[in-house]
């Protein structure tokens, strides 16, 4: 049943354009019913999951290969599915409001729904291959979403970058999945959970780890793959709010969580993940503070949050997993809400530059309220979910050795900087002195404010209703990630402990960051300008290098000179014919000279004369006609030895090729006389001789060997009996081997179309595609270097 629920968004996507045409932006209300329906279906699973059960569902797909369309509902996938469908509901509505009147709203909603379906499939899949298919589907649909505004260069570049980075990561991950499946003997995650020791004990564990993590790190924008996430801000805001809060970028984190019981707990895991995550956290926050575009600030804090999550999952203790799970849920709500807030401000005020906004609270009171609530959760202040998450993180990190403490310090710095960014976004645009924005401001419509308000409230309510949320969502999810029952006991007030002290320090530092924001921004900016190179630039350099190499390679291979092509082709043909005979030392015996009748001798003389004339011809036209003469002699030979069909065809082919070659000659401005140097003549002559001798030897070898007549007998016996034809050649062509003929006439058709296209091409200047056409530096492209 869950397998079908996953497909509903795809089906709805088919109808989205029609609905938008009928109802305009109100269609969003209808389409929002789809995620609502999915949520409703998911509710059925809550009781079973709360009891710690695991629901499996499998449909056969490629049975023989162990590939099934199978699904796994447990604490982890259920919570994720709720986030995707729940936030998806508000995003669909928000899109309706945000892109109201846009001519491609239908296309947008269709892609958004398809993305939602892919994401649901990804988190619910039990089979690794099914997971991979949905994983790549998210890459493709997000490519379409990011590049929605495809008439802008920057948009296209960002979409391509996201696709290349996440798509390549996905392919690498597939290799990891294949290894994991081979070692574990199954592609079902639910069975792999019990094979953890086998996989970890295998000598290829390191390979599996890196390959799978390549998928996770690229998708979840870990350093150095983080640039695609910030550049994806070129997309309309609903996309950013959805992709960068609960979905796309969390897919990598999901994968790490999912594989924790299988691959986790090793030294490699506990070293690599915290370091990569920690580095991402710090770099993300520095970039966030540096920027003034609110959307980019949020994007970089998303990078930072993903780093924090990866870091906590790398630590891997029960408390660390608890912290990661809580932070992931909290982040989905507050980040989704904040992105929508920024989008609404941008939509209504006409700018999202934090320095150009101020005092909006009177004009946009509801948006301001939502921004405030979401920011409080992001800052980790009580009684919000963000606070619970941060307490758990500090609790996990403050009970350990030097490594844990250094991570704790990393977390404090990162959180303090994020505190500053969150406070800036919630306070600067709405409080203080009124600054006249580019547009006359008013509150957003219901569709625009509903999402941020509800999502930011959930961040508060879910923390206050711990007694319900803990057993139904938090505990099952934490247990699912850990791979076993984990006792947890969450409180909004746990007394004064180390974690609380660290929290207070974070808040203190955060306030300081907020106050010093302008000067911090300046110094970080100077630092990054000083470094001057980042992965984003590196991406461009890599792509430019690749296209440069491809161009040079192609130019080297394709000289554009038909003589070179012919020489190469025939040289290889000659070698392919003669080398095996030399190596295996099998040569045909010299044939007996047969007794020939006079007319046969005549035909052979005719043939030889034709060939001699071709070689000796002074003009090209004579050579072509002579080839025709030689061809006619061949056709006559066929006729004398009892192959009328072949001969018939040969006559026609020779006639037509002479006609067509002569016509080609009249169009090409070739020299009438073929002049080539003695050296070239010797080379061409040897190649021609080689092919001739090779082909003749091969034919003699074949005819001197024993002839297997079974096929000929089959055809001559059955041709008339079952195919009603006396002409065996024709019966083979149109009946026994009709599929081959179908392929051949396809080739004829394609040749016709291509020849037509080639004849019509007029040479005009340099049309060699270069690197510059693929990735062109554009002044509007946001320089996001780090």
């Amino acid at each position, binding site marked *: 049943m869950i397998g079908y629920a996953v497909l509903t968004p795809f089906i709805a996507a088919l109808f989205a354009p029609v609905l938008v045409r009928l109802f305009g932006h109100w269609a969003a209300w209808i389409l929002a019913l789809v995620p609502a329906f999915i949520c409703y279906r998911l509710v059925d699973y809550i009781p079973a999951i709360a009891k710690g059960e695991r629901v499996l569902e499998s449909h056969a797909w490629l049975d023989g290969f162990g590939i099934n369309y199978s699904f796994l509902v447990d604490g982890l996938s259920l919570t994720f599915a709720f986030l995707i469908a729940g936030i998806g509901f508000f995003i669909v509505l928000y899109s309706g409001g945000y892109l109201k009147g846009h001519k491609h709203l239908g296309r947008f909603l269709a892609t958004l729904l398809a993305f939602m379906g892919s994401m649901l499939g990804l988190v619910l899949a039990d089979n690794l291959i099914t997971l991979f298919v949905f994983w790549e589907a998210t890459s493709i649909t997000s490519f379409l979403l990011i590049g929605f505004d495809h008439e802008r260069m920057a948009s296209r570049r960002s979409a391509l970058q996201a696709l290349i980075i996440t798509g390549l990561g996905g392919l690498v991950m597939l290799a990891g999945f294949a290894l994991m499946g081979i070692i574990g003997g199954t592609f079902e995650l639910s069975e792999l959970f019990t094979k953890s020791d086998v996989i970890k004990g295998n000598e290829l564990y390191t390979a599996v780890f890196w390959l799978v993590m390549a998928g996770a790190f690229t998708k979840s924008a870990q350093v150095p793959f983080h640039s695609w996430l910030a550049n994806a801000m070129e997309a309309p805001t609903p996309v950013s709010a959805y992709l960068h809060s609960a979905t796309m970028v969390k897919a990598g984190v999901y994968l790490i969580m999912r594989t924790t019981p299988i691959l986790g707990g090793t030294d490699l895991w506990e070293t690599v993940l915290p370091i990569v995550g920690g580095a991402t956290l710090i770099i993300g926050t520095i970039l966030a503070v540096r920027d003034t575009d609110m959307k980019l600030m949020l994007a970089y804090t998303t990078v930072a949050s993903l780093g924090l999550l990866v870091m906590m999952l790398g630590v891997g203790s029960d408390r660390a997993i608890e912290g990661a799970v809580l932070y992931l849920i909290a982040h989905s709500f507050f980040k989704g809400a904040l992105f929508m807030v920024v989008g609404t401000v941008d939509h209504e005020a006409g700018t999202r530059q934090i320095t150009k906004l101020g005092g909006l609270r009177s004009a946009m009171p509801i948006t301001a309220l939502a921004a405030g609530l979401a920011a409080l959760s992001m800052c980790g202040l009580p009684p919000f979910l963000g606070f619970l998450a941060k307490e758990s993180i500090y609790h996990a990190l403050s009970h350990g050795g030097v490594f844990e403490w250094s991570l704790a310090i990393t977390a404090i710095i990162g959180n303090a900087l994020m505190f500053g960014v969150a406070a800036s976004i919630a306070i600067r645009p709405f409080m203080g002195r009124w600054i006249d924005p580019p547009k006359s401001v008013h509150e957003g419509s219901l569709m625009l404010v509903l999402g941020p308000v509800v999502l930011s409230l959930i961040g508060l309510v879910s923390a206050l209703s711990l007694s319900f949320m803990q057993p139904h969502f938090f505990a099952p999810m934490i247990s699912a990630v850990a791979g076993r029952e984990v006792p947890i006991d969450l409180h909004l007030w746990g007394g004064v402990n180390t974690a609380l002290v660290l929290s207070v320090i974070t808040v203190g530092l955060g306030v300081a960051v907020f106050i010093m924001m302008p000067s911090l921004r300046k110094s970080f900016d100077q630092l990054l300008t000083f470094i001057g190179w980042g992965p984003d630039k590196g991406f461009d350099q890599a792509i430019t290098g690749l296209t440069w190499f491809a161009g040079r390679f192609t130019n080297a291979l394709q000289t554009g000179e038909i003589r070179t092509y012919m020489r190469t082709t025939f040289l290889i043909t000659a070698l392919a014919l003669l080398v095996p005979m030399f190596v295996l030392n099998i040569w045909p015996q010299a044939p007996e000279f047969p007794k020939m009748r006079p007319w046969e001798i005549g035909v052979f003389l005719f043939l030889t004369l034709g060939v001699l004339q071709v070689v000796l011809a002074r003009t090209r036209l004579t050579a072509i006609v002579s080839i025709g003469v030689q061809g006619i002699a061949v056709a006559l030979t066929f006729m004398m030895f009892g192959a009328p069909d072949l001969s018939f065809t040969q006559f026609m082919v020779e006639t037509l090729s002479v*006609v067509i070659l002569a016509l080609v000659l009249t169009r090409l401005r070739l020299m009438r006389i073929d002049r080539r140097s003695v050296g070239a003549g010797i080379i061409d002559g040897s190649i021609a001789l080689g092919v001739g001798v090779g082909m003749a030897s091969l034919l003699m070898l074949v005819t001197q060997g024993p002839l297997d007549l079974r096929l000929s007998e089959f055809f001559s016996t059955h041709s008339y009996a079952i195919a009603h034809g006396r002409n065996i050649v024709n019966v083979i062509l149109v009946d026994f081997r009709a599929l081959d003929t179908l392929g051949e006439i396809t080739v004829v*058709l394609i040749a016709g*179309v291509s020849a037509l296209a080639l004849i019509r091409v007029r040479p005009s200047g340099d049309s060699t595609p270069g690197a510059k056409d693929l990735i062109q530096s554009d002044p509007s492209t946001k320089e996001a270097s780090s």
Partner: protein
Amino acid sequence: MNTLILRTIAPTLTSLMVIYSIIVLLSGHNQPGGGFIGGLIAASAFALYGIACGVGPVRRALYFHPIAISGFGMLLAGLSGVVSFYKDVPYLTGLWWFPKFSGGIEVPLSTPLFFDIGVWLVVVGSLVSIALALEEKD
């Protein structure tokens, strides 16, 4: 090649060649011939007509663009195999009917026949389109 003799004889010659090519096509199942050879004959007929009287008259006479003819042939050949699905046999299996008409004339019809006509059209269309494009003065 714009000689009086060729121009005079070309229409007659072309008609004869096309008729002959159709005979070769239809009788090909039992005698030397078939769609491929027939197609080559017809293609050379149209090429000859083009050389003698210019490309315009050939294009007008064919009415459809040669590549469209070729594409239609491809479609016909492909579809002739689909019939076998209704009989629950593999794609492109030859199926035969022997309808009887008044006067005791039996006309054997088959899917290979339509397949062969498809081959004929593909060969004629593709070759004529190349030949005409080359003959055209730009």
